[in-house]
C-alpha cells in the first residue's frame, strides 16, 4: 500500500520534483502502467471546469469616505448590490439584473448587463460607476455618493460563491411543444436538442467522488487566481444515487469557494446574458488532487464513458417541481454531438467549455510544476453524508 502525505508532496513541489498530470493525462498513464506504478509516480492530478455558475458573487469594500457614509442601497453600473452589511461593504450577486432592464416583458428578454458583467468588468480593470444612498446617522452623516471606481480603488474585493462546481449535472431537453429559454440554453420542442453542462472526466468533484481530499481549506485555481474551498456548497447532496464506480448519477456535491479578485484574470471570469433567463457568471475553477494512495489515484482515472448524467425535461416536469429525470446518458455519448433519445437521434451541445477546462487544468499543472502553488491540506473534508448535517461528519 502506497501512502503519501500533503507535507511530502508539498516538499516535492517546492523542490520542483513533483510529478503533476491532468485528469485527462492520468487516464492513459494508469492504463499503460497500472494503478500501483502510476500512484508511485504521480503526486498531483489537476482538474478543471469552466461554466455558468449562478450562485456566485463578490464582497467589496469601497474605503470610508469623507464625511463617512453607511451605504443603504448600492449600485454598480446600475446593478444593485446588497448593502445590508457594514458601512462601506456590499455584496454583488452574479444573477442581479441591471435596474431598468425590461427582463422578460418582451419574452425572451436579452438581459444585456448584470452582476456577472460587473464582476468581469472589475476584474478586467474597467471603470465602474458607483452610486450609493444612505439615511444618515450621527456617525455616518453622508447620504449620497456617486463616483467612478476601478478594482484598484477598492480596499477589498473577494469573490465568495455559495455554490459552484457541481459534481455532475442534468442534461436539459424540452418535452413541451414550444421552444423554451432556460438556464440550460434554448431548448427546442419535442426534445429536438439536448444541452449538458459539465467538464465530465476533467471536472473537479468527479475525480474525487467521495471527497477524500477536497474540503475546507483546499487551495484551488479560482478565476485565474489562487482561491480556496470555503465550505460545502449550498445544496451539497452527497447522498444522491451513485454508479458502481461511485460516480453520482445526479448533481450531488457542490463547492463554496472564495478568492481574491485582485489576483483574477477576466479570461476566466465572464459575465453572461442568458436569453429569456437572466444574467450570470462563467467561472473557471481548477482543483488539484493529491495522490495520497492508490484508491485516490484510481478515482482520477474516471473516463467520460463511465460518467452518466440524468436527462431532464425542462419543458414540463422541471418547472412544475416534479421529478424530471427521464433518461440517462454518458458524457462520451454527449460529446459526440448526437445521442439517441426516445427512438430518435437528437443533437447535443455543451454549455460549459471543455477547452477552457483543459486550459485551467493545464495552467494549474504549470503553477505546481513551477513551485508557485502548494497544496492546501483541508481542515475538514466535505461531508459524505448529508443526514449528519454541517461539516461534522468525521
Amino acid at each position, binding site marked *: 500500500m502506497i501512502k503519501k502525505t500533503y507535507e511530502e508532496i508539498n516538499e516535492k513541489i517546492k523542490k520542483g520534483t513533483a510529478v503533476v498530470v491532468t485528469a485527462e493525462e492520468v487516464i492513459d498513464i494508469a492504463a499503460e502502467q497500472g494503478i500501483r506504478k502510476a500512484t508511485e509516480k504521480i503526486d498531483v492530478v489537476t482538474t478543471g471546469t469552466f461554466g*455558468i455558475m449562478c450562485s456566485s458573487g463578490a464582497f467589496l469594500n469601497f474605503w470610508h469616505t469623507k464625511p463617512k457614509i453607511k451605504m443603504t442601497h448600492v449600485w454598480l453600473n446600475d446593478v444593485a448590490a446588497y448593502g445590508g452589511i457594514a458601512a462601506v461593504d456590499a455584496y454583488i450577486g452574479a444573477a442581479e439584473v441591471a435596474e431598468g432592464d425590461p427582463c422578460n416583458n418582451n419574452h425572451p428578454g436579452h438581459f444585456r448587463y448584470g452582476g456577472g458583467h460587473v464582476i468581469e468588468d472589475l476584474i478586467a480593470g474597467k471603470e465602474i460607476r458607483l452610486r450609493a444612498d444612505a439615511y444618515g446617522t450621527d456617525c455616518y452623516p453622508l447620504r449620497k455618493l456617486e463616483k467612478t471606481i476601478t478594482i484598484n480603488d477598492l480596499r477589498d474585493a473577494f469573490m465568495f460563491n455559495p455554490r459552484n462546481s457541481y459534481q455532475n449535472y442534468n442534461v436539459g431537453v424540452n418535452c413541451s411543444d414550444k421552444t423554451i429559454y432556460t438556464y440550460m440554453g*434554448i431548448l427546442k420542442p419535442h426534445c429536438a436538442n439536448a444541452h449538458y453542462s459539465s467538464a465530465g472526466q476533467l471536472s473537479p468533484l468527479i475525480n474525487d467522488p467521495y471527497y477524500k481530499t477536497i474540503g475546507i481549506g483546499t487551495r484551488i485555481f479560482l478565476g485565474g487566481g489562487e482561491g480556496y474551498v470555503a465550505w460545502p456548497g449550498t445544496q451539497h447532496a452527497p447522498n444522491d444515487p451513485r454508479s458502481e464506480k461511485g460516480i453520482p448519477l445526479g448533481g450531488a456535491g457542490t463547492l463554496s469557494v472564495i478568492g481574491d479578485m485582485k489576483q483574477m484574470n477576466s479570461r476566466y471570469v*465572464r459575465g453572461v446574458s442568458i*436569453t429569456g433567463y437572466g444574467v450570470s457568471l462563467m467561472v473557471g475553477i481548477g482543483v488539484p488532487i493529491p495522490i495520497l494512495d492508490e484508491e485516490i489515484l484510481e478515482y482520477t482515472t474516471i473516463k467520460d464513458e463511465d460518467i452518466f448524467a440524468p436527462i431532464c425535461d425542462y419543458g414540463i416536469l422541471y418547472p412544475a417541481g416534479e421529478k424530471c429525470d427521464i433518461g440517462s446518458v454518458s458524457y462520451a455519448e454527449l460529446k459526440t*454531438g448526437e445521442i439517441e433519445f426516445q427512438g430518435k437521434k437528437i*443533437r447535443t*451541445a*455543451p454549455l460549459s467549455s471543455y477547452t*477552457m477546462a483543459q486550459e485551467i487544468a493545464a495552467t494549474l499543472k504549470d503553477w505546481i510544476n513551477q513551485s508557485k502553488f502548494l497544496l492546501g491540506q483541508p481542515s475538514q473534508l466535505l461531508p459524505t453524508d448529508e443526514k449528519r448535517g454541517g461539516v461534522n461528519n468525521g
Partner: protein
Amino acid sequence: MANITKSVFVKFSPEVVDMPVVYRLVKDFRLIPNIIKADINPQNQGYLVMTLSGEEDDYCRGVDYLKEKGLEVEALVDRITWDEKTCTQCGACTAVCPSSALSIKRPQMNVEFDGGKCIVCNMCIQACPVGAVKLDI
C-alpha cells in the same frame, strides 16, 4: 464552368427598391436564388439575404449587373462576425444552429464558424451567452 452556390447580402437604396432584380437574376443570368431573409419597403431602403446557385461565370455577371444598377452586394459572411477571442468555446450555439455553420471540432471540442453555411436565422445570437456572434444588417 463550375457550378457554385454563394450567400449574398444585397442592400437596396430607395431609388432602386422597385427593381425586380431577382427575376432578372433568374431570367438573364440563369441563377437560382433562394431567399433567406428580406426586408424591403417601397420608397425606402431594404436588404435581401439569399443564396445564389449557378455557373460561376453567370454568378459573376449577375453580381456585376446588380452593382451596375446601384445595389450594394456583399458576401454574407462579411456581415456576420464570430469573434474567436470573445467566444469561450462553450458550444451553446451549436445544437441550435440549423445549418451547422457553428459547430464543434472533435475531439478538440473547440467551436468553429463557417460563414458560408450561415442562413442568418439569428439563433446563435440568442444562444451565445457572451455575445461572440454579431450580425450587421
